[in-house]
């Protein structure tokens, strides 16, 4: 029996690095310090997994060898006019780097889950930058913590305790030394933790942020209510923002997925910029998948852009709305795809998922996903962070090392190894 400490959690953007895993006979027997989602993964990941590579034949998926599967995927990608590689936010930076290389090799689009989570955050960032900090700084110093359009207790269950209002920092040790505000359109499991919960009308975030900026900069606003809140409440919140020492806004998909999208982010960052006249203030996006930040970093190192990069011209071209995977599927332009560690059929709008199903596509994933059930080729992979090591970036862009705590089953390889095989096959096919 081995007790492995400081295991890095491969679930959400918190990337908690204090998990303790007990392993016996190459099985995880016990897991400590994990949240409920993380414990569910560590203790159940082995129960539903893809046993072997599959190929679709006469409507069914039948087993084939790994060599055949790699060759079929290579052929699909090489024969396409405008192929796409999509996903990799649930994989290592090393695999992500090879994914970008593969997209360059085939002259296709490389995109990732950012497009349907914090894509608008990246667009807002292009316009106004991002005054940000690390989660460590929040933990040690923040006395005002605002969660805007996010629900950490359900999406990032240890965020409050490890990095925020319930954490024991160097300079802020007690809960009483911090104030927590939640702004959301509905009550959630998180709202009961807040000192102040501002429940606003759906799609009115931009209006509230604009009103706060007016109040902060000019003291008065001639309205009785904003975003469904009485103006007195908005003024009270503005005073709270103005009078803290170190404030932080954590924001989620409540801002990026609703009316305004990247304009909401522009307004949020502008508000934070204004607040730095009175206090130290920062802003951090609540990233969902554990290494979606890493995928943005790696794609940016290699192409200059964080997501939605079109390499079909022979140089990187970036224009979300045009080059994003969702949009090239929407317009029916993409004619083949390789999905890695992602499940777009489950999460894209139905009509876009349908367009993916009309083209040849392959899936690399450790377990059956909704996308894998419809794929032409499926290649099972090892679970990164459990059966394969690598690097991952936390939501505040701090890199951490994912551990390998178990051996994968025989014949099951990491994403990094499988993408290498496909690259090698394509290069040998081209001579």
């Amino acid at each position, binding site marked *: 029996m081995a007790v492995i400490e400081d295991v890095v959690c491969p*679930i959400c953007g918190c990337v908690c690095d204090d998990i303790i895993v007990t392993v016996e006979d190459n099985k995880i027997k016990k897991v400590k310090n994990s949240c*409920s*989602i993380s414990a*569910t*993964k560590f203790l*159940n*990941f082995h*129960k*539903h997994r893809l046993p072997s590579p599959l190929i679709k034949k006469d409507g069914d998926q039948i087993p084939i060898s790994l060599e055949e599967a790699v060759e079929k995927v290579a052929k699909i990608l090489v024969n396409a006019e405008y192929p796409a590689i999509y996903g990799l936010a649930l994989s290592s930076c090393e695999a992500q780097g090879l994914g970008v290389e593969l997209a360059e090799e085939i002259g296709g689009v490389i995109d990732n889950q950012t*497009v*349907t989570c914090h*894509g*608008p955050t990246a*667009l807002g960032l292009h316009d106004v930058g991002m005054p940000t900090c690390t989660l460590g700084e929040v933990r040690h110093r923040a006395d005002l913590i605002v969660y805007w359009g996010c*629900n950490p*207790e*359900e*999406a990032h*269950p240890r965020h409050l305790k490890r990095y925020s209002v319930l954490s024991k920092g160097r300079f802020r040790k007690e809960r009483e030394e911090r104030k927590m505000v939640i702004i959301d*359109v*509905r*009550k*959630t*499991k998180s709202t009961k933790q807040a000192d102040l919960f501002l429940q606003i009308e*759906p*799609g009115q975030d931009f209006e509230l942020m604009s009103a706060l900026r007016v109040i902060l900069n000019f003291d008065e606003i001639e309205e009785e209510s904003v975003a469904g809140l009485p103006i007195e409440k908005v003024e009270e919140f503005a005073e709270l923002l103005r009078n803290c020492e170190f404030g932080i806004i954590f924001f989620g*998909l*409540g801002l*990026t*997925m*609703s*009316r305004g*999208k990247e304009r909401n982010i522009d307004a949020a960052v502008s508000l934070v910029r204004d607040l730095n006249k009175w206090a130290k203030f920062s802003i951090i996006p609540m990233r969902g998948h554990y290494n979606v930040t890493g995928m943005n970093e790696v794609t940016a190192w290699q192409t200059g852009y964080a*997501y*939605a990069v079109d390499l079909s011209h022979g140089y990187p071209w970036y224009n*979300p*709305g045009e080059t*994003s*995977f*969702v*949009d090239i599927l*929407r317009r029916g332009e993409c004619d083949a795809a390789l999905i890695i560690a992602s*499940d777009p*059929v*489950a*999460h*894209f*709008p*139905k*009509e*876009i*998922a*349908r367009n993916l*199903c009309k083209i040849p596509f392959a899936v690399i994933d450790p*377990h*059956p*996903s*909704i996308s894998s*059930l*419809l794929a032409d080729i499926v290649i099972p992979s090892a679970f990164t962070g459990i059966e394969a090591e690598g690097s991952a970036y936390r939501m505040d862009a701090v890199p951490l090392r994912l551990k390998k705590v178990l051996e994968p089953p025989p014949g099951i390889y990491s994403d990094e190894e499988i993408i290498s095989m496909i690259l090698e096959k394509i290069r040998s096919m081209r001579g």
Partner: protein
Amino acid sequence: MRGFKATLLTGRSLKQGMGKEVSKTSDRYKESVSICEVHPNDMENAGLKEGDLIRVTTKFGSIVVKCVPSDHIPKPGIIFIPYGPYASSLIGISTDSTGMPTFKGASAEVEAAPEEKVLDIKQLLTNLVEE
């Protein structure tokens, strides 16, 4: 049976997060994502009970899910479905030139669907490919 109009919000839930880590093909996942949280007043006005089947329709699609009362819904006229293939059936394809579909804020109609059933994941996929 009286239906009602609502604004559809989609998002994460703890059960959905845990269900997907068991398996997207598991009953646990299906049960976590094939529900719709409804304000108790809307349920009362529409004559709905917890667990009743309802059909949610937007201009982009229509799906049958299980009705769940929730005090997290701030007021009548708002409904919530967790991320997943059921919610995705109701979302529009426009991205406003950002790459991001509008997953929150679609106008929806809700009506009781006592004679219908919640499709399982495989049936949903069959419909996706064959419709």
